[in-house]
């Protein structure tokens, strides 16, 4: 590699890393508890254990469950109804108006069979929600999300440029070289290289899927205006229905329309997920892959009739598949633990990178270090401490 090319890559790596490192440290630190959000919620009682359904019991009527939830929050309108795939519980989100944003929503959790209200905490309160907001948008909404998305892209660039520099540095050294007994700088550099390469593929995927996730809002808006707009146009001059058809019947219609799938959640008219005139019953499969790929079934909220079963566009499928790849919540507890360990290794990569920057010399000296692969003619480390 020519010296000018090497210098360009070195500067790319240096500046992309420097700009994103502090934010990446924040994301890694806040991401650690988020991997175990479900378990922490169970342990702290925020997400109570739900008694199994009695033998032969039938699920309660969904309209009755929604009415019970609304009775908890007088004046609210229903926004979303959802099923928990891992326990016989359901949730109902309500709010002051149909377009209530998530931070202002109320949530009622009920037993799907007995209809009993369960003592669950609000999803948008507490320490874990604080950590979640810090991780996703820095409490700044869409601008915060897009900013963190940009940091994730810088991180991906730093990984790629770091790999380019790894080549000339390691050309005379065997893989996994860790020289801790020579200069401190060399020890940190070797550690940075080893950990960087071990976490390479994982960190790249988690970084890129994180950046994709920050586009969730704009992608959902695009989907709504592009695809749902087509169906909504048929209802253009009609006011939003005041009296809604039975949701229980609407879900039964959606089940019949997609027999191989189960309902994941329902959006009420006006929430932005299904236009102003439809229940959007979002069906999903039961494998780790298909449970992420929703199939919306639009039911006319006034008549209860099936309107359409639109296919999710490719960019929405990409968004939905990037979520588990970012959160690591799809391979049971062992994968979550390994995810957390890789997160810790990434923190070590960031800390070692920062340490190297603090112990920096001139760009020329660093380029010589890479060109000489960190060893002198006798195989000894350059720059003894």
């Amino acid at each position, binding site marked *: 590699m020519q010296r000018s090319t090497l210098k360009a890559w070195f500067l790319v790596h240096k500046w992309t890393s420097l700009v994103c490192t502090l934010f990446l440290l924040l994301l890694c630190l806040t991401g650690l508890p988020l991997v175990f959000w479900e378990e922490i919620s169970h342990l702290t009682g925020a997400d109570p254990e739900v008694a199994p359904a009695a033998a032969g019991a039938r699920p309660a009527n969904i309209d009755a469950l929604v009415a019970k939830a609304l009775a908890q929050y007088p004046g609210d309108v229903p926004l979303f109804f959802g099923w928990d795939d891992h326990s016989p519980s359901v949730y109902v989100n309500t709010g002051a108006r149909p377009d209530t944003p998530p931070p202002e929503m109320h949530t009622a959790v009920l037993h799907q069979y007995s209809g009993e209200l369960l003592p669950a905490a609000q999803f948008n309160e507490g320490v874990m929600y604080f950590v979640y907001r810090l991780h996703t948008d820095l409490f700044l909404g869409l601008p915060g999300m897009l900013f963190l998305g940009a940091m994730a892209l810088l991180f991906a660039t730093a990984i790629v440029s770091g*790999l380019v520099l*790894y*080549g*000339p*540095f*390691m*050309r005379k*050294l065997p*893989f*996994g*070289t*860790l*020289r*801790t*007994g*020579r200069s401190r700088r060399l020890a940190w550099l070797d550690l940075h290289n*080893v*950990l960087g*390469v*071990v*976490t*390479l*593929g*994982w960190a*790249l*995927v988690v970084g890129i899927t994180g950046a994709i996730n920050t586009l969730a809002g704009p992608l959902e808006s695009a989907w709504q205006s592009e695809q749902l707009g087509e169906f909504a146009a048929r209802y253009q001059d009609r006011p939003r229905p005041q009296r809604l058809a039975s949701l229980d019947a609407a879900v039964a219609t959606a089940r019949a329309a997609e027999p191989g799938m189960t309902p994941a959640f329902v959006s009420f008219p006006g929430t932005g997920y299904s236009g102003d005139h439809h229940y959007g019953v979002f069906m999903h499969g039961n*494998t*780790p*892959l298909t449970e992420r790929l929703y199939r919306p079934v639009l039911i006319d909220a006034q008549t209860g009739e099936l309107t359409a079963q639109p296919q999710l566009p490719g960019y929405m499928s990409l968004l939905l*598949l990037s979520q*588990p*790849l970012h959160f690591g919540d*799809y*391979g*049971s507890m*062992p*994968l979550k633990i*390994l*995810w957390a*360990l*890789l997160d810790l*290794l990434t923190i070590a990569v960031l800390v070692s990178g920062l340490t190297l920057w603090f112990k920096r010399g001139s760009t020329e000296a660093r380029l010589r270090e890479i060109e000489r692969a960190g060893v002198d003619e006798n195989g000894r480390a350059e720059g003894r401490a």
Partner: protein
Amino acid sequence: MSRPRAPRSPFVAPAWIALASLVGLVSALVGDGVFDVLSWLVFAALIGLTAWAWLRRDRGR
């Protein structure tokens, strides 16, 4: 007379590691059971690789 070996590219190990990571990431996503186990093994191996490098570190002065 043995033929001199061509120097191995320093990118060989990172390429294998990245490929294995991709297999681990996708494996648990496409199925449960054996697919989950494959994913756990891949990522446990990555952690093990770090431990291996640390254990054989050169402390010589």
